[in-house]
């Protein structure tokens, strides 16, 4: 086929009204989120003492962090759907959850002091936390990556990694509703490892599924 023929072919496909790529990606992410919520409701469920005021505050604090992880990942990955996006801008948002975690740790030290800090950090359910955060994030990761295929990232690895951050944040948020560990140190350590694992998985998959 001559290039001029290809031009004719593409011109014949000019009129196509589709949803903007970020909207399409978000729609798929929402489907992945729904799947994760279903898994959460069947396999986990909210912790028994959720109605206690102290529990609500502690859970709210955890979700303030994991929610910002989701926001940073989603925002960055959507930005990178454009080939002219700046990588720095896409990464900048990660400062928000990092600052929130630092704040929560500072509050915990102010309230409880340094005594027993390492015991609080290690807690009693670290490995289960990692496995749960990772497991709950798999459906959102797959769905979000599928949605991001509509994009044209010039750095598919970074786009995949940020999709991993978003999905890891979803897994962490859901598990935070179930998990009875309320220490910010535990949150940073074990949830952090879970999110980092999902991020690594995303950056492994990115170049494989997001190249165009």
């Amino acid at each position, binding site marked *: 086929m001559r290039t001029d023929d290809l*031009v004719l*072919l593409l011109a*014949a496909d000019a009129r196509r009204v589709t949803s903007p790529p970020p909207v399409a990606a978000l729609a798929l992410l929402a489907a992945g989120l729904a799947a994760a919520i279903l898994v959460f409701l069947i396999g986990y469920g909210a912790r028994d003492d959720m109605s206690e005021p102290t529990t609500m505050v502690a859970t709210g604090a955890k979700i303030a962090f994991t929610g910002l992880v989701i926001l940073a990942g989603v925002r960055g990955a959507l930005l990178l759907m*454009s080939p*002219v996006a700046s990588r720095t801008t896409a990464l900048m948002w990660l400062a928000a959850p990092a600052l929130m975690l630092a704040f929560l740790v500072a509050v915990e030290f102010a309230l409880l002091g340094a005594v027993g800090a390492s015991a609080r950090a290690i807690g009693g359910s670290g490995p289960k936390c990692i496995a749960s955060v990772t497991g709950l994030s798999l459906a959102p990761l797959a769905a979000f990556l599928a949605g991001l295929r509509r994009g*044209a990232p010039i750095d598919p690895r970074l786009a995949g990694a940020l999709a991993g951050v978003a999905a890891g944040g979803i897994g962490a948020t859901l598990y935070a509703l179930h998990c009875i560990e309320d220490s910010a140190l535990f949150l940073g350590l074990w949830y952090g490892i879970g999110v980092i694992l999902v991020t690594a998985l995303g950056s492994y998959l990115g170049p494989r599924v997001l190249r165009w």
Partner: protein
Amino acid sequence: MTISDEHIDSAAQKTRGDRLGDMMRAAMAGDSAIYAQALKEIAGRARTAARGMLSRGGRSLEDLEDIVQETLLAVHLKRDTWDQSRPFEPWLAAVVRYKLIDTLRRRRMGHVPIDDLADVLPAQTSAPSDVGDVERTLTTLDERQQTIVRAIAMEGRSAAEVGRDLGMKEGAVRVALHRALKTLATRFRKGQS
């Protein structure tokens, strides 16, 4: 689909501005005549960029048109990642650059034997062949898609005409065409490693 005078005027006013961007805005509003014009210009840019990169790398120009066609397909399929409120040129430059690097990386297949070079040299005085890989990839489409693609591309027929011949609605022809283009782009990427 008529060529809109309005867009031509604004294009003429801004020869140094975002002229190609104005054409693309008209194209994305559904003006396929302007779109064809814009694509030809984009093909020219991609050809220049690809030729420069190939000759700097001391490689033969035999793949040139394949690269141009693959870049055009990418521009077409990814054009909605361009934010129309921004200038088009930076977006185009990023896409061309990405596709050039991507295709060259995939085509890096050892050294070119001297015999091949001798074959290529005389051809360079005339225009290099512009029969690209799309032709080879076409045969992997299903029969109906092939018929549609050939009728539109080589016989220059419209989707409506093709639909009448095949007993399909025009919309169905367009959907089939769009799927075929996506398949071509994917096969392109995976076919040459």
